């Protein structure tokens, strides 16, 4: 098993609203609430969950696009959760992000050479010629023709824009890239090509990916481990193959049952259909006890009174549910300090 490249301990990101004349701060949304998660060097870690589960916020907080409210982030053995200035800048070149909406991620008033060259300008103060040469190299890596150099984003297709975004993320030879639903805005045929490219780049440059998605079909194919999030917390985390073979948390089961079935082979993996009732509750109003209780079909009295802990139930398989322990007859072994 590879060593941890990035590891969080009790990472929290709350969003505040100041109200009234006195500018009193009140917590509005706990988008990430005491999350322990680890991405190991060279792996693809998938974060899955519904909209509003806090997966994007967690990804952005991990690489310090957002400042964490509480908790620690260990990146390359250094705690980056509260550093700033030059020290943070040094780490930033190793942590990049590819955004969900490729149109919003590229400044419409800049040409491709300026967009992709920006990281070089900021971190290496490269000369214009050196910058241009490197951008050309990067465009080649993401399989875009060199004459895109002076194009504006509006002259590119969605897939091409996303490739430009990937090129920019690669510019500084990063170790970690957070991919925030990189394919969700693209056509299916383009999606497959982009995923293949990302896979190839990961092997070529020994990258670590944090892949945020709600497309479980894709996650199953590309990720090594999967973390299921609900209302800002981890519900279940396991190696992807195991998670799909033996989902334990009722929420995971429900998510898996929602994957459209195409082949017979998939039929075996996917559990019987479970329909989730209602919407994800507002993060403003998290239910006491287990936060999944309002939609859970396996709930009992204990779920209401006591919040379950995230427990390692099997090798590298963590779950946060009371029912899983009673059903599997295991003694809950609390592993609060260990991370999934």
């Amino acid at each position, binding site marked *: 098993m590879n060593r941890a490249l990035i590891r969080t301990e009790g990472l929290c990101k709350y969003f505040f609203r100041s109200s009234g004349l006195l500018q009193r701060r009140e917590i509005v949304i706990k988008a990430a609430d005491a999350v322990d998660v680890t991405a190991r060097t060279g792996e693809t870690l998938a974060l899955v969950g519904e909209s509003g589960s806090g997966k994007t916020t967690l990804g*952005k907080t991990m*690489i*310090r*696009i957002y400042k964490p409210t509480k908790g620690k982030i260990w990146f390359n053995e250094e705690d980056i959760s509260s550093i700033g200035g030059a020290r*943070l*800048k040094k780490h*930033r*070149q190793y*942590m*990049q*992000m590819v*955004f969900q*909406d490729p149109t*919003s*991620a*590229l*400044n*419409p*008033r*800049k040409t491709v050479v300026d*967009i992709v060259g*920006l*990281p070089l300008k*900021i*971190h290496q103060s490269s000369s214009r010629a050196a910058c241009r040469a490197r951008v050309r190299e990067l465009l080649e890596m993401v399989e875009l023709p060199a*004459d895109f*150099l*002076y194009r504006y984003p509006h002259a590119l297709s969605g897939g091409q824009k996303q490739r430009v975004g990937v090129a*920019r993320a690669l510019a500084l030879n990063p170790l970690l890239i957070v991919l925030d639903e990189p394919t969700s805005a693209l056509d299916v045929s383009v999606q497959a090509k982009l995923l293949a490219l990302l896979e190839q780049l990961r092997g070529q440059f020994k990258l670590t990916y944090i892949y945020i998605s709600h497309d479980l079909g894709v996650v199953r194919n590309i990720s090594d481990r999967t973390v299921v999030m609900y209302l800002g917390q981890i519900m279940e985390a396991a190696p992807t193959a195991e998670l799909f073979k033996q989902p334990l948390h009722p929420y995971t089961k429900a998510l898996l049952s929602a994957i459209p079935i195409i082949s017979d082979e998939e039929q075996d993996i996917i559990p019987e259909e479970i329909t989730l009732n209602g919407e994800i509750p507002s993060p403003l109003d998290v239910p006491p006890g287990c936060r999944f209780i309002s939609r859970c079909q396996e709930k009992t009295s204990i779920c209401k009174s006591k919040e379950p802990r995230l427990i390692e139930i099997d090798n590298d398989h963590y779950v946060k549910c009371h029912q899983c322990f009673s059903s599997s007859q295991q003694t809950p072994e609390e592993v609060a300090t260990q991370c999934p």
Partner: protein
Amino acid sequence: MEQVLRRKQKGNLARAFYRFKKNPLSLVGLSIILVMILIAILAPFIAPYPGDSAGAVHFKQMFQPPSWKHPFGTDEVGRDVLSRVIFGSRISLMLGVVVLFVAVGVGLPLGLFAGYLGGKVESVIMRITDIFLAIPPLVLALAVTAVLERNLYNSMFAIAFTWWPWYTRLAYGETLSKKEEDFVEVSESLGASRTYIMFREILPNMTSSLLVKITLDMGYAILVGAALGFLGLGAQPPTPEWGTLVSLGRIHLPKMWWLSTFAGLAIFITVLGFNLLGDGLRDFFDVEVE
């Protein structure tokens, strides 16, 4: 090869001009403005009696109606009205340019700071802006000119003083919407400076709305300048400012109609030109957004 690629971008400009041309009214506006600018630059050469722009006096030919010799007639001291209106274009255009230069120069950065930095900076800047916007611009300009010495430069200052909050508001609104875009977040996560993000990432994205507003405002600023001149608070005689000319001719209406009419027409045409051009630009940029 680089040259070839750059030339491709120029093709975009040509296409933009083509789209602009499709709206005939904006082309009319553009022509009016270009002619005005030419007249202003060449005033000493095309005015039939350049000396009449200042305090020349020819009592023998006072109050002559329009004729071949004096197409716009002559005024109460016998000066050629056409020459004075031609020289007036210099003053009005300069007033518009100076006022907007100052208003944009002051208002725009304030709006960017307020929108991007937020917090206390935002509260302070936007509350001051609100106070300014609560007072009708002409009234505020009147108050300022009333305090200061009455001349052209103080009237420019007074108008700019009332005008900057509009640009603060515009830049503030645009910044608020643009700073939510992911490309701003990318720059932040790369460690770009705030100045870079405000002026190099956000500002270029508001040029189109800025350009439209500046063009439309040129007309309004000239109008307000003329109004101040008309009220005797702007340029003082014998400066051939259009508003002042209308005001001076007013007492001789309706018999000596040519004194006020031609200066008034000049104001009308110039403001119309800027409005047509501004509307045309707005349509043009709307298309681009699609």
